[in-house]
Each structure stands twice: as structure tokens, then as C-alpha cells.
């Protein structure tokens, strides 16, 4: 299996938690949609992530859908 990962320059959700969190629901919904799309991709491909946590949700400055390629 090989992985192609995009360079993520925006830190992770853990950074937001450590900065005191984010109570803005629009932002939370946007984050949720993106994380869920990544998760949807995995689940559709019969993969369980098993370690979803804020530190594993990376942010990029320009948002796009997960593009991890699994062979």
C-alpha cells in the first residue's frame, strides 16, 4: 500500500483545541463536513480509520476533499 498525502500547512484541530477551542458553529460545521467527507471516502472503501482525534484532522489553507490514494 502506498499513500500520497498533500502537504498540509494549517496545523491540526488539536491546535484549535489548545488555543481554547472554537465555538463558532459555521466553522464547526465546515470542519465537520470536510472530516466526514474524508471518513466517508474511507468507509466506502471498507476502511476503518480507528484513530480519529483532533490531532489527526489536518487543516490546509485551501480546503479540498480527501485525496489519499490506497493501492
Amino acid at each position, binding site marked *: 500500500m502506498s499513500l500520497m498525502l498533500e502537504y498540509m500547512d494549517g496545523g491540526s484541530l488539536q491546535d484549535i483545541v489548545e488555543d481554547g477551542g472554537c465555538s463558532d458553529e459555521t466553522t464547526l460545521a465546515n470542519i465537520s463536513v470536510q472530516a466526514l467527507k474524508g471518513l466517508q471516502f474511507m468507509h466506502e472503501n471498507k476502511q476503518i*480509520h*480507528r484513530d480519529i482525534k483532533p490531532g489527526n484532522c489536518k487543516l490546509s489553507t485551501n480546503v479540498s476533499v480527501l485525496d489519499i490514494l490506497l493501492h
Partner: protein
Amino acid sequence: MKVSDLGIAKQLNEATMFKAKSFVGTTNYMAPEKIDGKEYSFPSDVWSFGLSIMTVALGRLPIESHGSYWTVLHSIRDAPPPSLPDSFSKEFRDFIGQCLKRNPDDRVSVNNLLQHQFLKKTVVEDLASNQNYDRGKQELISILDAVHTHIKALLRDAKGRDSDQSDDSRGDLRPVYDRLFGDLLRCHSAEVMRNLFFPAPDTEHNKRVVRPRLNNLGKQLHLPMDRVETEARKYIEGLHRDR
């Protein structure tokens, strides 16, 4: 944003019935069924996702994370699932609540979660953050300003020509000009603006030219279509008031 750390992701096949039985994952975000050593499946990811988003919202993990390893595990397993305070919207609380059902069979799937009401209301703003939204709105206003200035100049020019019958050099262009602008020459610039941006909704011109154009403008400015319309209407109403 992406989901990463696939180091322990496990390939599942029909034989394992999409269930795996090994003990991995960060303890604090672990679903209750994992702690009991039960088989876990896709719903376990949903629990961890819900708890992660809740942690981001609160700025702290909403479960007892101090104390010994087993204290933490037992509190995840035995305490009622954490819930958000009333300061958050009903939709968001339900969204998280659907993820944090103790019984994995009761938990919502990722596909259904993507359809949740909480995400619906923000689809509009999915294109851009609030900061970008303000910038987009400013850009839209300056575009409208530029269009309006241009129209005013055209009208001034056309009206001047209308009254100046002796100008033979431009006489040839009169029919062309009339066909292009027609009655608009007798209109105020605000009305021309309105005809330009909001022609009668059921005309072919509106469907084929104006709507797609407004749509493209919205995309360029990272503004949702309905916002472009609202702002343009507001602007044009302002012009009418200023007459």
C-alpha cells in the same frame, strides 16, 4: 482539511464482516465498545469523530482524562455519553448526540451524518469563511459601482447625441444604438441596472444569460448565489432612493 494517520487503518473484507478486534487507537477518543474489547466497526469512527468535534467546540476533552488509565477507560464506558451545553444550537447538540450513542448500532452512519440538519444551514457558507464573505461583498459592491458608472456615461452620451441632431458623423450609428438600448435611453440609470441584473424571471434571456452570469460572479467572489442577488438588489434599491 483531511483525515490522516492511516498507520493503523485496517483493510476489511466480507469474511470479517467489517468488524475487527484489535486494541488500538487513542484512549481518550475511543468508543465505549472498544473499551469492552468488543468488535468494532464503522460506528466506532463516528464516536471518535463526534467526540473530536465536541472537543474542538469546547476547547477541552469533555470526558474525565485525568487519573489512571483504567479510570479513564471506565469513565468512558460507564458514564453517560458527554453532551453539549445549551449555549450551542439544538441542531449542533443533536448532531453530536447522534455520534455519541453508547450502543454502536444506534449511532448514525457517516453518510447520514452528512445529511444532518446542522450541516445544511452552513452549506451556503461552505464556500468561504466569514472573512472572505465580507471581502467578496466589498468586491461585488465595487463591481456594481463600476457597472453603474459605465451605464451613466453611456446614457449621458446617448442622450447628448439624441438632442444633437446636427451631428451627422454619428448619424449612421443611430439605428444600431436604438436597437441596442431602445427605450432604455429614456430610463434612469437605476432602471437600466435593474433590467441588466434582474430581467423578468421567465424570459429566455434571464435563464440563458443573466442567471449563469450572476452565478459565475458569485463563484468568483466566493459568494453564494442568493447573497449575490440580495446584495445586488440592495444596491439597486439604493440607487432608486438616491434619484
